[in-house]
């Protein structure tokens, strides 16, 4: 059996990395272009307003539009505007939010920490718990715990999280009064209105974060549980596990070394791709229900207030994260699985 040259392998590995990066870049560019095109077609509320008032006062709406555009710098050929748009995005100038009266990037920067406050714990808990329970289920297939976990998984995936949030809020907030009904942003901030570490981790803040985390977690954990159970099951019943047993390897080592390690590959990829998706969409609804001033609420308000720049800005963030996530997913899959040899087809 001929061993491929070691340097050829290295080239292929690096080549893959580069190609994936390039692809991420291409995807980003495509999405930006589409955004630009869409933006061109979006009725701009302000311009519409201007034209309307111009028409009302007997002026020339076309002229008014021209002037406004020139003032705004919204002139030039389509291509010029396009390149300017792209360079703006890259340089961090994402436009001005009329609704918030601040640059889009600033609005995003203030909103993101709030989203992370419940998003990150949710991500961690669902990952750890989800995979653990899934693995346990696979190892103890058909046991009572397995059935209970599966049932729980079904419920978790099925329950509409916005409805669940409402129900929990009623029960734990109104009826039991264990958690506050209204989200108080002041609890996590200092006098000047800036987020402080102490404030974020304060008991009051944690209390009001419990329900959002629970709601978001139940959805994603269920999904993760089912997938990791399915993946682990394939390995649990694999022949090489039987070989290991016949060799006399201890049960613990079998689980850790022979099942977990190979199973972690598809699981790692799953984690990044699907989980992020669930979290983003879920967080949108969670924030609206609980009144958390995070990315979701920002986006929602932007839509309601017809704030074009902000709308696109708030849609970029999850999209870019998704692209990066996919990239990480592809790379980790390729590097973790020795069976994949970068372009050799079976």
């Amino acid at each position: 059996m001929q061993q491929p040259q070691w340097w050829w392998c290295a080239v292929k590995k690096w080549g893959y990395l580069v190609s994936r990066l390039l692809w991420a870049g291409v995807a980003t560019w495509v999405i930006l272009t589409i955004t630009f095109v869409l933006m061109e077609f979006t009725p701009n509320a302000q311009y519409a307003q201007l034209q309307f008032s111009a028409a009302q006062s007997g002026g020339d709406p076309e002229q008014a539009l021209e002037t406004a555009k020139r003032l705004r710098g919204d002139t030039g050929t389509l291509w010029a505007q396009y390149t300017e748009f792209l360079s703006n995005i890259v340089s961090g100038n994402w436009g001005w939010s009329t609704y918030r009266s601040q640059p889009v990037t600033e609005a995003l920067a203030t909103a993101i920490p709030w989203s992370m406050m419940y998003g990150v714990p949710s991500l961690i808990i669902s990952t750890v718990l989800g995979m653990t329970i899934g693995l346990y289920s696979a190892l103890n297939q058909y046991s009572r715990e397995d059935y209970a976990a599966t049932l729980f998984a079904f419920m978790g995936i099925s329950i509409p999280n916005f409805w669940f949030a409402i129900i929990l809020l009623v029960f734990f907030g109104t009826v039991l009064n264990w958690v506050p009904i209204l989200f108080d942003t002041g609890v996590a901030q200092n006098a000047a209105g800036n987020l402080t570490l102490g404030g974020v981790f304060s008991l009051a803040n944690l209390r009001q974060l419990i329900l959002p985390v629970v709601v978001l977690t139940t959805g994603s954990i269920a999904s993760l549980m089912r997938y990791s159970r399915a993946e682990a099951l394939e390995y649990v019943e694999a022949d090489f596990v039987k070989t290991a047993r016949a060799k006399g390897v201890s049960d613990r080592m079998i689980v850790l070394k022979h099942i977990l390690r190979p199973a972690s590959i598809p699981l790692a990829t799953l984690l990044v791709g699907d989980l992020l998706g669930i979290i983003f969409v879920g967080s949108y609804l969670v924030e609206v229900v609980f009144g958390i001033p995070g990315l979701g609420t920002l986006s929602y308000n932007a839509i309601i207030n017809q704030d074009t720049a902000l709308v696109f800005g708030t849609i970029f963030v999850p999209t870019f994260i998704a692209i990066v996530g996919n990239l990480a997913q592809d790379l980790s899959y390729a590097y973790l699985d020795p069976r994949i040899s970068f372009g050799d087809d079976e």
Partner: protein
Amino acid sequence: MSTQTTPDATDAASRNDDVLLSVEDLVVQFDTDGGTVHAVDGVSFDVREGETLCIVGESGSGKTISCEAITRLFRSPPGFIRGGSVEFDGTDLTSCSDDRLKEYRGNRIAHVFQNPQGALNPVYTIGNQVREAVELHTDLEGSAIRDRVVDLLGEVGIPEPVTHLGDYPHELSGGMKQRVVIAMALAGEPDLLIADEPTTALDVTIQKQILDLLNDVQERHDMSVIFVTHDLGVVAQIADRVLVMYAGKVMERDDVFDLFESPEHPYTAALLDCLPGSGGLEGIPGDLPDPFNPPAGCRFAERCPAVTEECIEGDQPPEYPVGSDDHTVSCVHHAPDGDPGELDGVTGAIGGDES
């Protein structure tokens, strides 16, 4: 060969000294959604030191489960040993705890499985996996372990073992993979090697190589071998004694030469008939009995050309000796009050080739 005794002698004192493994009345069942599968239903056999016992039968005969039951390798649930005993070198393995059993696995009893493709963990190098076996079963440390790994790989016929230590399973051919599996099995210097259809998934030319390798290894290490197969051609090449199983029961048990020359059970005769070159092309008509609900009487009755009323009553007929004590058949026609004449034309002396 030393004096022979019947395989199911229960008197320990009269048991032969060089019997390494003694399986008696083994019953293994699987509890599934569709019912209880009677995989192994009262099987007994012995393996003596240094000998090769071949267990022959079709898929579903229970031969694999019988072997996995020796060190309890099948998943439990849903599989359970519900009767009988497995005595290995004086200890009943069925009553051992899992921990105790682990000391035997790989160490004194090793397994080689059918499917080399799946037998090796894809994310670890073969060096790593053989090393695992060496670490488990020897007291070697440091570089001695690596040397032993290289030795083992060399012994099973892997050329230039050192260069292959870092190979992943998917980089090797089927034959090579199987050699690695055998190397792992040898790491603990086992007394008994159980090979479950190790060559079935391989090309014929590779098959021969692996069989030769197993022969070599057995001689060199003075091991006993249980070789499970459905291929009588292979049996002819390597077996000392043969056990023929069908639907969870033993049909016939014999010395290999005698078996090929004059099989006494209709099933064995039918199997031999299926060998290429012996003329028949029909196969054995009929189907396997329902594993959930085995029929009364002889399991093979439905498909047997010599079937009579007695065959379908009661239990599977006990194994009656034929000729020498070492040859037994589970057939009513060989009972003391039976008529072997019924089997004329079905069993008995077969002319010709055993290859």
